[in-house]
């Protein structure tokens, strides 16, 4: 009995035939390597230490929020219409940034104001999680809270840019440890923690089980709602943290930025599939995807590509990733 269950526990497989890694497992890495090589040859600045630090800093916001979204997709399943999705993550990041900036402007110490931002974000995550555990579709629940968060941001900021100053935010922006900026360290630490929790602990394995096959997980005695509620709260809290990082980087809370970063966060979380042999969303894959998307943005700009093409390139990139994933899935059937 336990022998039959063990393989499923070790790695939640989408299909039994997907066991052989084959060539396809390396397509993701190969494609990314090719793109990065192109940039490295195209621009002499691309591989300089300061540019890499910039890329990592840019990646940190999407990476951290993306890890949150990845946990939602892991515990909710990757079918977007019915499964796990958090559309509110961008708006929550914006709201948290605004709250942080307002608190800092009102004179709260840096760390405390960040805490306020993350707390407000977590509150929205609890609303998301409860709505979903009550049985509402995640797509609709988070659509509604997205509207609420975006509008709260406008109400708090009166649609004005709120500048932040002070040594705390300057330190958060400028401090570098071992050549890597603070924001990037945060992303690496969160990625490593997420890798450990979702790759090595029973919580993580159970989360995958609940997402991949809720009925089977339920028969096995797991309650999907517990894992899902936690994932929505985590997603919003991480989005809140990402929002405060964005404020530190821009030295201001800019209203309406949430909608702009939402697409990137979704892109990064789904792109993590190409780093997984079994085409599953994963935490480490999300961090890698965030670095790659930031490098893509950066590299295209360095090559002198006009900004309107960058959006098109990103859209085509998601399509490419998804097409490769689904084509591979069909082969297995």
């Amino acid at each position, binding site marked *: 009995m336990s022998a039959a269950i063990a393989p499923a526990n070790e790695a939640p497989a989408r299909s039994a035939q997907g066991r052989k890694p084959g060539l396809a497992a390396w397509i993701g890495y190969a494609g990314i390597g090719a793109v990065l090589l192109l940039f490295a040859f195209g621009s002499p600045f691309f591989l300089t230490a300061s540019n890499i630090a910039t890329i990592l800093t840019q990646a940190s916001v999407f990476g951290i929020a993306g890890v949150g979204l990845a946990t939602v997709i892991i515990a909710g*399943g990757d*079918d*977007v*219409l*019915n*499964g796990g999705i958090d559309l509110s993550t961008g708006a929550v990041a914006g709201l948290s940034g605004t709250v942080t900036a307002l608190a800092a402007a009102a004179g709260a110490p840096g760390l405390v104001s960040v805490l306020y931002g993350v707390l407000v974000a977590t509150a929205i995550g609890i*609303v998301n999680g*409860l*709505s*979903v*555990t*009550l*049985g*509402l*579709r*995640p*797509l*609709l*629940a988070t*659509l*509604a*809270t*997205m*509207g*609420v968060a*975006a*509008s*709260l941001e*406008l*109400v708090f900021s*009166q*649609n004005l840019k709120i500048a932040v100053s002070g040594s705390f935010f300057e330190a958060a922006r400028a401090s570098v440890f071992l050549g890597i900026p603070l924001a990037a360290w945060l992303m690496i630490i969160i990625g490593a923690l997420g890798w450990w929790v979702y790759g090595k602990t029973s919580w993580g394995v159970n989360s995958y089980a609940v997402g991949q096959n*809720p*009925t089977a997980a*339920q028969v096995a*005695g*797991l*309650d*999907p*709602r*517990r894992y899902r*509620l936690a994932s929505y709260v985590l997603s919003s809290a991480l989005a809140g943290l990402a929002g405060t990082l964005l404020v530190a980087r821009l030295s201001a809370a800019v209203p309406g930025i949430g909608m702009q970063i939402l*697409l990137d966060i*979704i892109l990064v979380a*789904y792109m993590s599939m190409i780093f997984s042999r079994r085409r599953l969303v994963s935490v480490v894959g999300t961090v890698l995807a965030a670095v790659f998307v930031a490098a893509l943005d950066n590299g295209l700009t360095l090559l002198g590509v006009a900004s*309107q*093409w*960058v*959006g*098109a390139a*990103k*859209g*085509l990139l*998601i*399509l490419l990733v*998804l*097409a490769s994933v*689904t*084509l591979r899935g*069909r082969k297995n059937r």
Partner: protein
Amino acid sequence: MNPAQTLAAPPAPAPGSPTASSAKKRGAFQTSRLVAPGTLALILIVFSVLSPVFFSAGNLVGILGQVALLALVAIGLTLVVRAGGIDLSIGVALDLGALASAWLIHDGYRAWVAVAGGLLFALAVGLVNALLIVVLRIPAFLATLSVWFVGTSVQQLLTSGGAPIYLSAPLVPDGFAVIGRGYFLDVDAAVINAASIAVAVALLLGITRYGRKLTMAGEQPSAAKISGLRINALIISAYLLCAVIAGFAGVVLAARSNGYVPGSGQAYLMDAIGAVFIGATISRYGRVSVGGTLIGVVIFGLLDNGLNLIGLSFFWQDLARGLVLLAILLAAVVLGRSKGQPATGIFALLRTAQRQAQSTTVKGSTRQ
């Protein structure tokens, strides 16, 4: 199918859900179906009390004119959701429809050329969606999300970086202007357009064989396929029709506003999704319908207008909209749950967690 399917996530958390769903079908009436009309009535009453102008004929007719475009977009989306998909690129179809028609009018073409051009441009968006979703089998949400990305870029490229097109009113042919700004028997042309499309789509979904096939393809794809329906063709047709209707909304927008502003279509997306799923709550089967969608659209229209009249700032409107949407959907899901099903929610969650903890400890001890 499970009645609450459109709203509630299908992996039903209750172990006894098969019996629960049959119990729901036998039940005489679900209170959850009254939530949306009730909210509509509540909004009407509250704002009538708060503002003297609100419940006047002039204002209510004006609201219809304001929501006509949203109604068109939401009706298009209704078709796609009925076919079991979703279309996030609907704003792109609207924008491209507006762009092409404004462009053609700007270059001096006749009205019908501009309308046809707008619809064709929008159709291209629908074709891309259908190709990605049906041929490449990419999940609809992600496929249309990337079309949204790419479409935004395409607009910027076509307008050399996002420059709006303005039409000078005297040069616009009457045949084009009348689509968005005309009046027939004192009724706004946009309202007439939206109403006629609404009636057409409602009949299409409600009484034709095509409508029934589309519903089957959306709700039971495998069963529909086995019984010999060409579900791929049906789903493609839904995305094409949706894009054309959104493109028509774009043409109306261009005629109404005498021009085209890049990226104006995406503003309708969230409201349209909200309206469609609010509409699903009035159906016994949780099925989206044109009538329900229009109720959702009117709820948003009345809410916006009422908040404007009582002088609440623009910033608060989205908040109210989001809260009303969340409240309606949650109320419908909670009320729609039959009594046979075990209670869910935070208390039940805690209880099951506790039970689970006990059972796991028991299991652990037996294993040793």
